[in-house]
């Protein structure tokens, strides 16, 4: 297994291949700043929940360097932030559930958003795991069964300003 490129995005920093990228915003606004800087022409970004925005923008930056054949991501809290947002729309007496929020109440939507954007027709999976280390054997197993490279890594979001993505482009040799 070989990692050719990696990116880590937290609410306060972006590190691409070990080099800090200068940013001025923090939290969810940081993701919008990155979208404006690296994408800018994909308005669907604004409809995404924070988890999907995080995974989408991390993938966007990495896949500009190198395309991939598959997407394997994981986290511990699934789509909890958006689940809570959706719950708010169905808890009070004024009952207007939001279809736009409902569609993001599954964490694997982020892998779908990435695959749609980059026309990836191979494996796409999202695993909800106890800890980050549990993802490694899954990626190993995946690499034995699909063409490489793949986009793999941890994509966690527990609130709009609490998130962490560590994505890598991974080869099987």
């Amino acid at each position: 297994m070989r990692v050719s490129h990696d990116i880590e995005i937290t609410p306060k920093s972006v590190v691409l291949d070990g080099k800090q990228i200068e940013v001025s915003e923090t939290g969810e606004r940081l993701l919008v700043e990155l979208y404006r800087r690296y994408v800018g022409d994909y308005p669907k970004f604004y409809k995404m929940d924070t988890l999907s925005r995080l995974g989408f923008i991390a993938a966007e930056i990495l896949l500009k360097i190198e395309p991939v054949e598959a997407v394997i991501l994981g986290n511990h809290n699934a789509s909890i932030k958006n689940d809570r947002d959706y719950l708010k729309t169905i808890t009070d007496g004024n009952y207007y559930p939001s279809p736009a929020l409902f569609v993001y109440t599954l964490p694997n939507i982020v892998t779908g958003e990435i695959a749609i954007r980059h026309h990836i027709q191979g494996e796409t999976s999202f695993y909800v795991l106890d800890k980050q280390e549990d993802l490694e054997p899954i990626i190993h197993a995946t690499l034995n069964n699909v063409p490489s490279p793949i986009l793999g890594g941890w994509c966690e979001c527990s609130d709009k300003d609490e998130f962490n993505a560590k994505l890598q482009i991974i080869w099987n040799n």
Partner: protein
Amino acid sequence: MEQLIEQLKGQIIEALNFEEMTPADIDADAPLFGEGLGLDSIDALELIMLLDREYGIKLADPKAGKAIFRSVRTMAEYIQANRTK
């Protein structure tokens, strides 16, 4: 009518999360789906919810949606004729 159109544009921007957009960016006569704003089926559901929530309109005939949601202006005309609040 023009006041309702401007109000509706603001509500559409908020409901569909078009953070970068202002009412002035939306052409009242441009198609909402396909070209124009490029809305999708989930957005259509949001617009149906908007009509119910803001104007007390429940769409009884789904086939009517195509004509109602052709543009912001056709939406506003339908609202003016059918609103209950």
